[in-house]
């Protein structure tokens, strides 16, 4: 086992263990803004343990997809996690074009989630599923603009290219900032955070993600919760890896900066969540159109002014 693989494995294991921390941190930030003490950052771990000890109950009207859904969701997300270049080097599983594979794995998990929601036959869950599909389709465009930008700057299409991006090349500063802004918007929408969706709400008419998971219980629900946290971790690490030019860094420096980056981004998500109100549904597509526009703008800026293709 080479050093690189070792470092990768360390961070991969850390991501699996640490990801349930992120929702806890966000909740802590929100509590701070509201002037409350708030639940412990470890709250999600407690919830997961509690749920794992319960039994799983499935609605009698379902056709069985709902049983499979949590497994598929969790499986695809764990597979996706394998491709992120932790430790600043290529992941051991990388292949050409795997960044597209990465996002399609995330897409597959969403499809499983939607089918699971539809399977219950509940109208609320159907409503949530339709909204999820709608917004995800729009978010896809912005994601691919961002991927296009990354490929243009680095000339690669593996996830490993993330280690060369960000503020490594000062000539690309403006476009990198714009692209990061676009990706941050996508991150908020994809992870069902305010202002696209409100994870705290339990009003049926305003829910998206929460509406889809109403019928899960016990270990299934634990899987869904864990998958949500892992997805947030994947997006946030993608964002941080994009920003830090970690290509040739020592492992210690990398770990410190990456960890701090993840923490800061999580706090930023919490701040956005505390300062903004949820948008009306009509405005969410606008927000995604905005993200797409910003990402395209970054591409213009890059191709016209910053040296273009590598």
């Amino acid at each position, binding site marked *: 086992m080479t050093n690189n693989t070792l470092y990768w494995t360390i961070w991969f294991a850390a991501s699996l263990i640490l990801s349930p921390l992120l929702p806890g941190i966000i909740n802590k930030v929100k509590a701070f803004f509201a002037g409350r003490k708030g639940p412990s950052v470890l709250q999600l771990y407690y919830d997961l343990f509690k749920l794992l000890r319960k039994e799983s109950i499935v609605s009698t009207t379902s056709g069985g997809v709902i049983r499979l859904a949590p497994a598929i969701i969790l499986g695809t997300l764990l597979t996706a996690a394998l491709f992120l270049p932790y430790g600043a080097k290529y992941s051991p599983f990388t292949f050409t074009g795997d960044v597209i594979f990465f996002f399609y794995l995330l897409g597959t998990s969403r499809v499983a989630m939607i089918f699971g929601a539809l399977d219950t036959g509940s109208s609320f869950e159907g409503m949530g599923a339709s909204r999820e599909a709608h917004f995800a389709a729009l978010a896809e465009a912005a994601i691919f603009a961002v991927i296009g930008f990354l490929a243009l700057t680095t000339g690669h299409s593996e996830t490993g290219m993330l280690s060369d991006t960000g503020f490594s090349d000062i000539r690309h*500063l403006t476009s990198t900032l*714009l692209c990061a*802004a676009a990706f941050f918007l996508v991150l908020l929408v994809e992870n069902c955070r305010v202002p696209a969706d409100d994870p705290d709400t339990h009003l049926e008419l305003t829910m998206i993600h929460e509406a889809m998971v109403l019928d899960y219980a016990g270990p299934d629900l634990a899987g869904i919760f864990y998958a949500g946290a892992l997805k947030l971790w994947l997006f946030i690490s993608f964002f941080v890896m994009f920003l830090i030019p970690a290509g040739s860094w020592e492992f210690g420096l990398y770990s410190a900066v990456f960890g701090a980056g993840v923490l800061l981004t999580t706090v930023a998500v919490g701040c956005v969540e505390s300062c903004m109100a949820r948008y009306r549904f009509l405005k969410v597509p606008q927000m995604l*159109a*905005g993200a797409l526009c910003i990402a*395209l703008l970054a591409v*213009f*800026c890059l191709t016209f*002014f910053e040296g273009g293709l590598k």
Partner: protein
Amino acid sequence: MNVQVEILMAFFLLSCLMLAACSRMLHCIRIVALQGLLLGLMPLAAAEHIHMHQIGAAFLNISLKAVLLPLLLKAAMHKAQVKRELEPLVGYAASLLIVLGGMFISFWLGRKLNLPENAGALRLAVPVAFSVVLTGLFIIMARKKAITQVIGFLTFENGIALFGSAMMIECGLAVELGILLDVFVLVFIMGIAVMRINSAFEHIDSDKLNLLEEQTHGAAK
């Protein structure tokens, strides 16, 4: 290459997209105030050696464009009892795409007006300034209310001033003051005009300002 200037430029581009998608009058005014702040910081960021008069000019710029004019606009808005929604003639998503198209044209133009190699951080001055100018013009045309036209005009003016400060064209303190004074008086007169139009027409939608069309001018009596 100048890192601060690049960051300010990125924020300028973002502010234009935000303005195109913004549906609340107050938010629009805040975005224009943000642009004023960015604009005031620009000469400080672009200069190699900061002189006393630059700090003075930046201070004046910020206090006028980021504080005073937005306050004036807010006052006019409250006085004229404008509804907070913008009622755009062009929908927000379409606005975003049009503004993006404008930016594409600006970047293309900026590339045509290619700068000498040693221009450094100035290379983004032309496309970003043009983007802001075009966004301002678009807002003037595509929003109904008279007060949003003032907002559009301010954006337009910010774009021009951005070009001037990013190109580091020293026009002398007298001219700089003159330009600021002109803009201030203009917004002031526009604010008064908004109120007068409001009381004469009982609304301030500028698309209802159509008495003086060529065909119907007889009705103006």
